């Protein structure tokens, strides 16, 4: 992606404006990192997980008839992970500490998402962000199994072994 330096500059601006921001990343909706400012973790893994969460989020808003995906906010014990639509093919994911000002995070991220959209090839966005289209219905792929857990033996509850 040739737009990466501009996107990265946008992320740096975001980090300067929003206190409590611990990481920021722009990724494509299929989980490829375009630019990131995260330290201490693997950005590829976070992008891949974001893509998975995004798929579920988009399907959920579609299922209840609320249109395309806009934002996803996950609150953990020690902080927030928030994902915002940035055009039809990209998302902006932000990591913030638990004492973050979520109102401010939302405002800044929505604006940044709208600015990032044209940089990544999306439509130059007016007030509305172009929603991410809902993904195709899920193929019945098995969930990845935990290490040490034998796949294909779903009904064992420990008694049979």
């Amino acid at each position, binding site marked *: 992606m040739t737009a990466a330096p501009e996107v990265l500059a946008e992320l740096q601006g975001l980090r300067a404006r929003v206190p409590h921001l611990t990481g920021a990343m722009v990724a494509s909706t299929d989980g490829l990192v375009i630019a990131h400012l995260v330290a201490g973790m693997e950005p590829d893994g976070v992008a891949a997980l974001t893509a998975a969460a995004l798929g579920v989020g988009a399907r959920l808003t579609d299922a209840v008839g609320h249109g395309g995906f806009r934002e996803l906010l996950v609150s953990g014990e020690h902080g927030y992970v928030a994902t915002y639509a940035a055009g039809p093919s990209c998302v902006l994911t932000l990591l913030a500490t638990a004492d*973050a*000002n*979520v*109102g*401010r995070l*939302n*405002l800044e991220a929505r604006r940044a998402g709208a600015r990032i959209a044209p940089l990544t090839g999306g439509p130059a966005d007016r007030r509305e962000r172009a929603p991410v289209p809902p993904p195709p219905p899920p193929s019945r792929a098995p969930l990845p199994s935990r290490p040490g857990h034998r796949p294909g033996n779903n009904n064992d509850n420990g008694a049979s072994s």
Partner: protein
Amino acid sequence: MTNTETALKDAMGSIEGALGVALVDYGSGMALGTLGGSQTLDLNVAAAGNTDVVRAKLRTMEMLNIQDAIEDILITLGGQYHLIRLLTGRGGSGLFLYLVLDSRRANLAMARHQLKRIETELEV
């Protein structure tokens, strides 16, 4: 005892010169309710920004070792007054009322008195 919606309506209706009012959670920076405002006065932006104001003051007091609580904060602009009043009642901690007044029409003493009454009656 009044609920959020009634309190906001009360503030807009009974306080002379009121341009907008919001009930804000300064834990998250998000507004629990807003009333009034305009194209140029986005109360959700105000909620997020004034959360930083309240947090900064609380932090400053902590650094100065002041064992006290903020009752209200007044910000005087050229043409507006901004009043921030922290909620004290049960269930109200971590919240503040934010009121924007047109300074040409408002009576500051009366507005402050009215806002105090609304805050005491408010139950979230």
